[in-house]
């Protein structure tokens, strides 16, 4: 029910590179899981409100008071390629 082309599309969205054999396997496994999950599609729940958050909290705010954040060195310490006080990355593909 989810074919190779769809798997490729989803993998692109998820920024995951899948090998050819992974693509095949993934299509099969996802189809199996989706078949099971599809049972909920048959339930009639038109008038039901979706729950995104189980606990009754709304708009939890705090005073807008600036506080010190972390020093730059601390944040850059685990970086794979820190440079000039920033995170260096490969360039995006030229258009």
């Amino acid at each position: 029910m989810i074919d190779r082309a769809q798997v490729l599309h989803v993998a692109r969205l998820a920024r995951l590179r899948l090998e050819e054999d992974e693509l095949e396997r993934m299509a099969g496994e996802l189809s199996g899981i989706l078949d099971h999950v599809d049972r909920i599609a048959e339930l009639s729940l038109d008038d039901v409100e979706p729950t995104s958050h189980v606990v009754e909290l709304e708009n939890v705010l705090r005073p807008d008071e600036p506080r010190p954040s972390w020093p730059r060195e601390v944040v850059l310490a685990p970086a794979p390629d820190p440079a000039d006080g920033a995170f260096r990355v490969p360039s995006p593909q030229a258009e």
Partner: protein
Amino acid sequence: MSAELRQLGVAEASRRVAAGELAAAEYAEAWRAAAAEDELNAFLWRAENASGGSEGPLAGVPVAVKDIFCIEGVPTTAGSRILESYAPPYTSTAVRRLREAGAGVLGKTNMDEFAMGSSNENSAFGPVLNPWDLGRVPGGSSGGSAAVVAGGLAPCAIGTDTGGSIRQPAALCGIVGLKPTYGAISRYGMIAFASSLDQCGPLTRDVTDAALLLAAMQGWDRCDSTSIGIEGGIGAPRREDLVGLRFGVPAELAADSVDAGVRAVFEATLGRIEELGGEIAEVSLPHAEHGISAYYVIAPAEASSNLARYDGVRYGMRAPDAGDLIEMYEETRAQGFGTEVKRRIMLGTYALSSGYYDAYYGQAQKVRTKIAADFDTAFGEIDFVVTPTSPSVAFNLGEKTADPLAMYMNDFFTVPMSLAGIPAISIPAGLAEPEGGGTRLPVGFQIAAPAFAEQRLLEAAFALEQAIGFAQRPGGGGDGG
């Protein structure tokens, strides 16, 4: 001497340390030495100095911490290659509060990668072995935390539970595991899997210790806007009977799917509840059977969003020589994530993608509303819902890895409580032979309560635990198989 010290319960040990009768360093050393003999692959990192403080309700107690909790300067991998050499610059609130209560950190425990799994076979650093049978799984995703407590390598541990990841390994390892109400314990510093479901909780030898750890960790936290805490706090449970309490067995979470041995222990435990004066009733949770379907849409969907941050830019692994920016993202994630994580990211991305959002995620959220409402209705008639924690006892390594759905079914009884956000505990209720025969293995009994009713839950669990008197330990101590 060291073995004697390790027999002390957490409450008693901390009492002695606070009273000056036992040195925190001595108690910590006994545990450090035990942890060093780990043959279960349960620890990913061990502290050289596990010593706690000499004051507080957890004075001197070294806690084993699932490797999903950030501790400043300490390797934190979430069981994944993508964070293999990562050390956070900050400490999670849960661990900070344990330390403020006097506890020390014994080590970081192995886990299913990013908390995705029910067997601890999805770790990038190898599976954890069940101390009851080294050829079997300890359960997951908090398999390491459960194994160290059951195996006598730690006095207590903390883990996380998103769909059952504390309760199920506790059941398979014969210990106590508690998932509190969503919002009871801050998630700050707890590497996120599914933000509307994840909860921190204790894995301990008994209900008293679980209450102690919960008391120390719970509470509103400025750094977690979804935290609330438990009004009135938590006190040591003391209840001796179950008179006047009603326990509901859900008709829809029925016995068919449960191994015969597990069903027998479950029913015997219902008998004990009645002996203690409790009342057993049948209740209906009409949508609970759809829990797995709803969960395996919602959790992967939230995970696909939460795991987008692992892209090789700011921390963690980056694939070398990968090409342009997008290729770097794709290659880093392909190399850094394991199979199950990729599977769930794909599932979640699909469920949230344009054209599918309403049919999958939207529908699953509605099922969630109904499951929560079913519990609400049930709690109008009964005080607790009870089920077996897991459909089977600990299974063999490799037994369920071929079919993802078969593995997901391990969460059948635990997922509904996660979706509803209500607290639930698993206590060891007896031993049973696995299907196919062999050495008897632990069976867990799950009790669930309404939101924020942890004290009542712990009281009932305590009374039942005392009556059951589960004293068996791995390696034949107490029962002889």
